[in-house]
């Protein structure tokens, strides 16, 4: 049981980081970024080449993974999403645009990197033995969890206490009111998209040290991110964090007891049942 709890918490902290990026883009732009998983995958590849192949220091490679994806997110927002949002009143348009970018990123990655699974050296060697051998906690997993939580806290502080952070919150709450208050909405939405994409890149860069990466991992990660933000509530920061931990724990329990495909079947069924009672997730607003 202790082992399941530890696995769940480690997974949950990384998942929360993934969900946070997705929920951020949604709250700012009302766009479900289907390419979030593919951005995660690209972050993993940046890390693989910089840290694994070229020998960059871990921190520098991680920040560069985030920065690279931030720039990609910024470009996507400026040249693809903003024109579509300006020209179409249908939310389906932005959704299909997001799907298009997901397919584009995934297939460009497939062409560039192939289907092979890539891995990098673990951060720290060694295993922590807990409770006289009841549970094992590799130090590298612990490091990933601590770094994930560090980034989550840093983002929360940024959003809470800095001027651009407050502007992000204002745009998320009411775009028109923010505009009237002198907020440069176009810049802030671009910033929000860039931060969301950067978080995906950082999560990918971080988790490549544990699970490796391949070009096809994106759709799976996006689906998990959707589950997390549906549990917590779309567009709500606390919801994304809680959703991440809930999914991490559910996966840890499921994988211990059931085959993986059965675990996900049960997670989907449980989520449908959950949404009957909480149609907007735990903390969500009725976005509609």
């Amino acid at each position, binding site marked *: 049981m202790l082992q399941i709890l530890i696995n769940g918490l480690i997974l949950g902290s990384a998942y929360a980081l993934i969900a946070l990026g997705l929920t951020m883009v*949604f709250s700012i732009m*009302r766009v*479900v970024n289907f390419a979030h998983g593919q951005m995660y995958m690209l972050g993993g590849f940046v890390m693989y080449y910089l840290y694994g192949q070229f020998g960059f220091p871990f921190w520098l490679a991680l920040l560069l993974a985030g920065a690279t994806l931030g720039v990609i997110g910024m470009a996507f927002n400026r040249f*693809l999403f903003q*024109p*579509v949002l300006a*020209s*179409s009143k*249908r*939310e*389906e*348009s932005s*959704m*299909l*645009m997001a*799907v*298009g*970018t*997901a*397919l*584009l990123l*995934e*297939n*460009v990655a497939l*062409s560039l990197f192939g289907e092979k699974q890539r891995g990098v050296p673990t951060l720290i060697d060694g295993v922590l033995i807990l409770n006289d051998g009841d549970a094992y906690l590799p130090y590298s997993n612990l490091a990933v969890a601590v770094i994930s939580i560090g980034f989550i806290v840093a983002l929360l502080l940024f959003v809470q206490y800095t001027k651009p952070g407050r502007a992000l919150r204002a745009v998320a709450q009411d775009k028109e009111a923010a505009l009237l208050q002198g907020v440069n909405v176009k810049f802030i939405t671009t910033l929000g998209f860039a931060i969301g994409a950067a978080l995906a890149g950082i999560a990918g860069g971080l988790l490549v040290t544990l699970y490796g990466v391949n070009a096809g991992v994106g*759709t799976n990660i996006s*689906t998990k991110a*959707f*589950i997390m*933000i*549906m549990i917590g509530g*779309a567009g709500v920061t606390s919801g994304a964090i809680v959703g991440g931990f809930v999914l991490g724990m559910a996966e840890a329990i499921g994988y211990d007891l059931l085959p993986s*495909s*059965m675990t*996900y*079947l049960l997670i*989907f*069924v449980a*989520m*449908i049942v959950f*949404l*009957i009672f909480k*149609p*907007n*997730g735990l903390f*969500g607003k*009725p*976005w*509609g």
Partner: protein
Amino acid sequence: MKLDKRRDFSVILLILGVLVVLPLGIGHSRYLMSVLMNCAGVAVIASGVWLTFCIGRINICQAGFALIGGYVTAILIAKAGLSFWIALPLSCLASALCGALIGSVILKLKGIYFSMLTICLTEAIRLAFLNGGDLTQGSKGITGLPQPFSGDSALPLYYLGIALLAIALGVVWRVHYSRLGGIFRAMRLNEDLAESFGVNVWRYRIMAFSIACALGGLGGSYFSVFTQSVYPQSFTVEHSIYYMLFCFLGGLEYVSGAMIGAFALTILFELLQDFQQYQSLIYGVLMIVVMLTLPNGLMALRSFSFSRPFRKGEAK
């Protein structure tokens, strides 16, 4: 928005007419016929997605219902020994019932919650068939299904596809251009307002979703006999997304939109067969290009008008 019913009807009639007489021109070519059968099947499924757009829901689980239709047909034929002609309506019914049952739960959700849940639902349906034991035969799927027509000719199966497409379009047409269609449009614009005018929104939502699922099941059933097999991977989330693209490319304001998109893209991919490894990439680029350049679809292009020359007394 004013509905251009005549243009819509002209396009449907023209395409169905061409499809009916085409075998005379192509000399019963098996390859060309299989391409067109594929187009017809895909268009039947996509017309269901189009219908859910009418009620303001983005349905990304149509592939799941096509999978239900395909598996019910396969199980009834291969395991229960029933004829395809009994299995086809039963598959359609099974998909509609599953749609009504699941819809009564998930149609409470709106916007992105609904869309994200439908993605998970497609996966859940696929995993359910994957874990179905001997009945669904896991990842091996059910293969070797007998064709419903005797003889070597692909012609009867081809005409079956055209007939199913005509039925699907007929159903969607009847719904869209009737009082029901007006109710659906009102619901898409503002559900609360529609409810305040006495519309039983819950009932109509489920009705629209069930019809859409039935069309998914119909297409899935056709595919299972057309390809003589069904696997959990036959219909995935990616397929559901392609059906959405078909609807967008054709045009969301026209019943013929889903059919135009399905035929245009399926034929395009047959022409690009040499680049099959880049299929998803081409789809991705197309989605981006369509969204940037054709937000209202092909049917909204002015030069696509069939009705303009017939209108009388119209101010220029």
